[in-house]
């Protein structure tokens, strides 16, 4: 096995080319087969370094396989299978292709051993995932997609700048642990690039902006890969950077605050990604073995339960066409299975005992206790908000509360199956944590099910539940738009387009205008003058030719709304004169 290594990234990327060719059942089978094969590939993979390539004098490593990359690849391929199963009924080939490329490139990042490979897959990831938004095909989705894409390219550029600067400093592109001592600009640039994908405030706004606009299946994929790939690269490179611990704790609370006041179900979940990723970033920042383990375990658990939540609300959106809480309600009679699955996701994310969230979240929280009590308190606060908004508010207002009068059917079979698998994993990990703990990067000496721990969590949750009942009126969602820092770049893009539209387009017109008034008028008069003299006096033939020339020129120029040849020539001349003057007087 050691000599043979198949990059699961390439399974997906090559597989994506076949999707448009295949039809019907064959296609559906193929769609499921590829993630299954990739999953097996990852399970059977042994550690080592594979796929080293010399390229333009750079050493590229496509396969750096160790415990950290394996556990992420494990959950990525697993989630890919669930996601594909969930979206199996989608007729739109493009969505499948985009999802495949997206999954493939995030696996590519996971196994990348050098920054160049990492960067290329990083970029493909952004470009593939934006299509999952665009395929929603609404104007809002197109706009949100563009914002998403531009933000990610800018993040990619920070990363690229950091990578190139770092190459100048250390002389290689190797991707590995960066020491918290002796931080340079390059380190910060790379960290900003990574943090943007991890949605660390204040560069997180793309996430709640774009994810709710994505297609039903698209959101399921997106919630799993972009941020968690970022968590992976942060864990690999920046473990133990204190700033991440602080940012992570802020993230955890920040996301929850917005989630509590949000109305759109999928936007609530999107803000919860910010919050949950906060736990992971915080764990990485703490940097102890237990904390990194906790972050990794939490990423694993989170991918599954967040996928489940997006699948549950996605099923509602698919069947009813609505995702705003204020427009939903009373669905328990019609979609009881979706309710069950969503609640499973909800209690997992809240960290109920016997679910995956319990074992992973408490590990991170406990690691933070030894680090800083303040950070631990922030994480616990975030826990309360999480249970309040996702565990209680979300299911309550979709499935109970007032009857909204809609009577949707239960989601199609493949969706239910996918949700069933994800729900099973949530409980399975909660009951049998060893399965996950054995995969973690460091050995685990920690037991989640202790009496004190159990009691602590239950108290927290029960009081939150009580609070919910008391505050129910206050929590009733309102159909408002909550503005986040995305306001700045929405305005920014508008301002930029305005500059492009107005001053610069005007500039060409305006200068042309000035020129017309002075230079052209003069020329026309002069030619007119010539024309008259020649006409009155001498040779008719030549006169007509010259006049005809000017007339033709005028005629040609009239045809063009944008400008006259003379303007262009004038600008060339002006440019030449400026250049010459510059050199003569330098």
């Amino acid at each position, binding site marked *: 096995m050691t000599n043979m290594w198949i990059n699961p990234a390439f399974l997906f990327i090559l597989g994506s080319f076949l999707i448009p060719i295949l039809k019907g059942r064959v296609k559906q089978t193929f769609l499921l087969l590829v993630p299954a094969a990739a999953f097996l590939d990852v399970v059977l993979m042994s550690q080592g370094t594979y796929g080293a390539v010399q390229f333009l004098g750079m050493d590229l490593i496509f396969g750096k396989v160790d415990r950290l990359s394996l556990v992420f690849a494990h959950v990525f391929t697993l989630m890919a299978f669930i996601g594909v199963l969930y979206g199996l009924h989608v007729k739109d080939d493009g969505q499948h292709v985009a999802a495949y490329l997206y999954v493939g490139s995030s696996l590519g990042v996971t196994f990348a051993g050098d920054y160049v490979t990492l960067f290329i897959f990083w970029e493909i990831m952004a470009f593939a995932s934006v299509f999952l938004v665009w395929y929603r095909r609404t104007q809002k989705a197109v706009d949100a997609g563009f914002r998403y894409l531009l933000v990610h390219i800018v993040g990619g550029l920070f990363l690229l700048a950091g990578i190139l600067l770092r190459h100048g400093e250390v002389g290689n592109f190797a991707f590995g642990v960066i020491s918290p001592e002796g931080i340079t600009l390059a380190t910060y640039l790379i960290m900003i690039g990574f943090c943007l994908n991890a949605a660390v405030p204040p560069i997180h706004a793309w996430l709640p902006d774009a994810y709710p606009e994505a297609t039903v299946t698209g959101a399921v994929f997106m919630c799993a890969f972009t941020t968690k790939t970022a968590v992976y690269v942060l864990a690999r490179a920046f473990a133990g950077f204190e700033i991440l611990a602080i940012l992570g704790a802020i993230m955890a609370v920040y996301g929850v605050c917005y989630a509590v006041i949000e109305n759109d179900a999928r936007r609530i979940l999107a803000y919860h990604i910010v919050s949950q990723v906060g736990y992971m970033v915080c764990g990485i920042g703490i940097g102890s073995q237990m904390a990194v383990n906790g972050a990794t375990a939490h990423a694993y658990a989170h991918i599954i339960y967040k996928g489940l939540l997006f699948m549950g609300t996605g099923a509602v959106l698919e069947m009813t066409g609505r995702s705003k809480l204020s427009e939903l309600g009373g669905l328990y009679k019609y979609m009881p299975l979706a309710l069950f699955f969503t609640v499973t996701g909800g209690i997992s994310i809240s960290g109920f005992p016997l679910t995956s969230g319990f074992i992973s979240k408490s590990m991170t929280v406990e690691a933070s206790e030894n680090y800083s009590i303040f950070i631990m308190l922030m994480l616990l606060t975030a826990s309360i908000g999480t249970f309040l908004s996702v565990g209680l508010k979300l299911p309550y207002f979709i499935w109970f509360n007032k009857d909204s009068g809609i009577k949707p059917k239960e989601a199609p079979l493949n969706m239910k199956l996918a949700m069933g698998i994800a729900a099973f994993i949530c409980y399975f990990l909660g009951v049998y944590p060893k399965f996950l703990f054995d995969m973690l990067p460091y050995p685990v000496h920690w037991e989640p099910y202790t009496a004190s721990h159990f009691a602590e969590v239950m108290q927290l949750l029960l009081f939150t539940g009580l609070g919910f009942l008391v505050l129910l009126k206050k929590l009733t969602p309102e159909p408002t738009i909550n503005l986040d820092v995305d306001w700045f770049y929405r305005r920014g893009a508008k301002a930029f387009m305005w500059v492009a539209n107005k001053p610069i387009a005007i500039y060409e017109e305006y200068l042309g205008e000035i020129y017309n008034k002075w230079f052209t008028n003069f020329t026309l008069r002069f030619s007119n003058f010539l024309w008259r003299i020649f006409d009155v006096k001498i040779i008719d033939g030549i006169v007509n030719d010259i006049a005809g020339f000017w007339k033709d020129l005028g005629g040609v120029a009239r045809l063009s709304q944008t400008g006259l040849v003379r303007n262009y020539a004038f*600008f060339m001349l002006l440019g030449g004169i400026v250049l010459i003057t510059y050199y003569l007087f330098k």
Partner: protein
Amino acid sequence: MEIIIPTINLASIYPEIVVTIFAVIVLLLHAFTPHHSPGGAGKGGDHLGYISFIGIAYATFLVFTQEGGTEYSFNGLWILDNYSRFFRLIFLLGTGLTILISVKYVKDEGINHGEYYSLILFATVGMMIMGGGADLITIFLGLELMSISLYVLAGYTRNRLTSNESSLKYFLLGSFATGFLLYGIALLYGATGTTNLKGISGFISESNFGNPILIMGMVLLVVGFGFKIASVPFHMWTPDVYEGAPSPITAFMSAGPKAAAFAAFARVFFEGLPSLQGVWVDLIWILAVLTMTVGNVIALVQNNIKRMLAYSSIAHAGYVLVAFVSANELGIGGILYYMLAYTFMNIGAFGIIIVVGGKGEKRVNVDDYTGLAYRHPVAAATMSLFLFSLAGIPPTAGFMGKFYIFSAAIKSGYIGLAIIGVINSVVSVYYYLRITVAMYMKEPESAVSGAESMPSLVFSTAMIIAMVIAAYGVLRMGIFPSAYIALAQQSHLSF
């Protein structure tokens, strides 16, 4: 009087000779073929195009058989080195693809004349002469041969006013620019006493190069070449000419002649004026920034796709100028690599524009691409590939090209320039992907009016071949670029 007998090495100009011969053959063939229809206009068969293509293919083969190494001939007027070989391949590729995408177009527009192909071939000869000229006079002759052919080609669809306008504008402004260029050559000759590039560089390095006449000559050359490569502020002809010219000719102009202008530009400046590098590098730096920025920003607000690609081609010239500024050997390789990549992707994009535009080029607005993916998934996917490449998205040729250029800039210490370039390329993503979004994400207008506004697209065999070649090139250079990069790096100038 001593008579100098120049070394005549015909072998070094075999490809040029072949293309010339084929140009004449195509011209005569059409003249001597009986025309059955009255007037005979536009009724020539496909054979004219295919014969021209064979000529190009044969010339390409000859370029490959030429031996490596650097060799001067014709009394120092002509040079054959890896640099000129690489550029010849770019020109021949651009011309070959142009011929293929023209075959159906010229029949639809009723301009299927021998002259059409003949002029394209003559323009190609001009470009090849520009690439191989070791003397300002040779370069000038090549430039004129190319330009005059292009003036005619730009106005080739005689019955369309925009085309006439385009041709006339191009001609007037082109002549104006030629004046600058010629004046610059004259001043250089006056200052150094020779037009030979080696002679000029030898003279400057031996004597004091602060001579203002020399500097003025150099600036005028920048203006002249700046016009040909469509650099800001000498760019204003580009959108009008590109919009009005027949689409295949627009594709042609944006690839080959632009590359030829760069070939000559770089040759003159790196081989003839290397000692002045400290002087002109600032100038080119400014031009690069202006060109990238103005090109991209104005492209943002264009709705006519030909016009948009015209501004985009201005922006791409700016990227190549970045490679020009960061003039280590990597930088020169960047010019070569980028122009090759650009030839593939831009002509590819124009191929789809021609097909979608249909007879009379009626559908050239971004809105006309709405819902294309629903009707013609293959055309839409191919177009997206070219647009991705133009935007510089991995894994395409455009990405590798930009990566190459910007890392060269950083290695040479032009970090500011690289940052401006990269920001520009982010801006450009918007207007390229706008078309992709229109094709994929928007439903076609109502079925009735949609069917009216977009009849089925017709791909001729030649067009399919061209698209396959272009798509292959874009992917090949993006995924396995090593061979091309090695080739480009070998082809640096000896400076």
